[in-house]
């Protein structure tokens, strides 16, 4: 039976994590279809068709899908579900919002944030902020699964013209009229997106103010890095909520993660300890962050960060 990947997108392209979801789906079975539901989502559908491993794209055009309201997207997925063995979404804020609604409407369990596909019905997922790994087997006929994108390497993209998958137009289901989109206050940034950046620099309460985060911006720009933060830094208002890395924020796994003025609470480690190389800068040599750091520097960040910026700027 085929597998349905439900794609997040901005109207022009599907989110980068759709390729990760396709990669995960390809470990559950073959014949992968991608659903692109939206309003004027033709370009996004084309970008989905170019992902390696995709057999077919279903494009559902309806004004109701313009802003991905769960109340309207879920019934569409539920209607398509009987044709599929698995419904797969990336565990981002779209997937987490929609997948459980789909599962409950189908009266099936949902597997949250799978990090490994053991077999088509068995998955590994972190629990307790990643301090334990549970292997779970679903007994349901239709398997609704969200996957952690950083754990599934995207295959080489097809690229324009290279054998794109067919795009099939399907109708929409209209709006339930339960909810409406008002607007968004999105953080604008030219820097690489946190969850796909090769280098991530994160700041914590040690930065002491939002003003001081400018220092990290300079360092991030010198290194071509994305910028993240601890919950404490977000709660204190230094940076917006979407910077939060951790158990209840974003999960990142870059080649290089630099934690600056972050103590390393388990909730923070849950979001970054799969990074390839971890650097910690902290004035407290006992800080738990040093237990996961490959390279640690004990000292005052206000002295070390400018030095580091200067050192990486001159190649």
């Amino acid at each position, binding site marked *: 039976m085929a597998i349905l990947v439900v794609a997040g997108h901005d109207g022009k392209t599907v989110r980068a994590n759709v390729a990760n979801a396709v990669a995960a789906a390809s470990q559950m079975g073959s014949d992968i279809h991608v659903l692109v539901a939206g309003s004027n989502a033709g370009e996004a559908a084309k970008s989905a068709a170019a992902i390696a491993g995709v057999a077919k794209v279903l494009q559902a055009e309806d004004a109701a899908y313009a802003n991905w309201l*769960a*109340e309207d997207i879920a019934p569409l997925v539920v209607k398509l579900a009987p044709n599929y063995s698995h419904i797969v979404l990336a565990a981002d*804020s*779209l997937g*987490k*919002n929609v*997948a*459980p*609604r*789909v*599962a*409950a409407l189908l009266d*099936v*369990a*949902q*597997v*949250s944030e799978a990090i490994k596909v053991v077999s088509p019905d*068995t998955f590994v997922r972190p*629990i*307790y*902020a990643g*301090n*334990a*790994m549970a*292997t*779970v*087997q*679903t*007994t349901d006929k239709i398997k609704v699964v969200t996957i952690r994108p950083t754990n599934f390497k995207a295959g080489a993209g097809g690229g324009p013209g290279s054998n794109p998958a067919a795009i099939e137009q399907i109708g929409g289901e209209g709006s339930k009229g*339960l*909810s409406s*989109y008002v*607007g*968004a*206050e*999105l953080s604008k940034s030219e820097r690489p997106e946190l969850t796909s950046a090769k280098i991530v620099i994160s700041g914590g309460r040690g930065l002491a103010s939002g003003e001081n985060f400018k220092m990290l911006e300079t360092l991030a720009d010198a*290194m071509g890095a994305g910028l993240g933060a601890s919950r404490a830094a*977000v*709660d204190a208002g230094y940076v*917006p*909520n*979407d910077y939060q890395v951790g*158990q*209840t924020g*974003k999960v990142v796994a870059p080649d*290089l993660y630099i934690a600056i003025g972050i103590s390393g609470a*388990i909730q923070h480690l849950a979001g970054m*300890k799969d990074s390839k*190389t*971890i*650097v910690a800068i902290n004035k407290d040599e006992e800080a738990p962050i*040093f237990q*996961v750091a*490959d*390279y*640690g*520097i004990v000292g005052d960040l206000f002295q070390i960060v400018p030095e*580091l910026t200067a*050192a*990486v700027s001159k190649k």
Partner: protein
Amino acid sequence: MKVLVGVKRVIDYNVKIRVKADNTGVETANVKMSMNPFDEIAVEEAIRLREKGVATEVIAFSAGPQQCQETIRTALAMGADRGVLVQSDAELQPLAVAKLMKAVVDKEQPGLVIVGKQAIDDDSNQVGQMLAALLGWSVGTFANKLNVAEGWVEVKREVDGGLENIKIKLPAVITTDLRLNEPRYASLPNIMKAKKKPIDMQTSESLGVDIAPRLKTLKVEEPPKRKSGIKVKTVAELVDKLRNEAGVI
């Protein structure tokens, strides 16, 4: 309007958990238990709505073993009016919890349900969305700010790119994010008062709900450990290691 809040009893967020030697789960014997932190935020929001005159009554719901009474008492001490405990020693997965909550919603007819965005033990992030689905209600997940009006709720949501504003129809389910509010501490007099507040005792049988788990946990293991690193003395040394040893810059 009544408000129903979900309060789950979980291992306290400060406890370093241990995986059982037989790989069947996590050690819970003699471990400090607390209310799920996101649920404290849910209780706080509900109480504020009552203080503003929007809500008339706040009901705290918990499902699990007998000791969940303590979790409900904590909510009552914060200011909730009464509790409902669905007592069960069986494993309760999110779909089962959502079905139990739905049965209580059918009885109590609240206008709003507030739950946490995620339980910090199973890290599922499912119950609120599932409950809304079962009820055919709207949902405002990851709430950063609420404005409850006549027939509608404006919800500011924490999403991947920042914040998003939606307007959803009442009755509705809300799931709390960390910045929604700062929960209050219960005062001593309120802790005393809470002891007298009623808790309605139910079971899955009394509510007629099938709670059979749909996911089988085959094993629970320790995560792989990172090999310990080194401390460097200078920035120059750090940059050298990153370039020539790790090869990441």
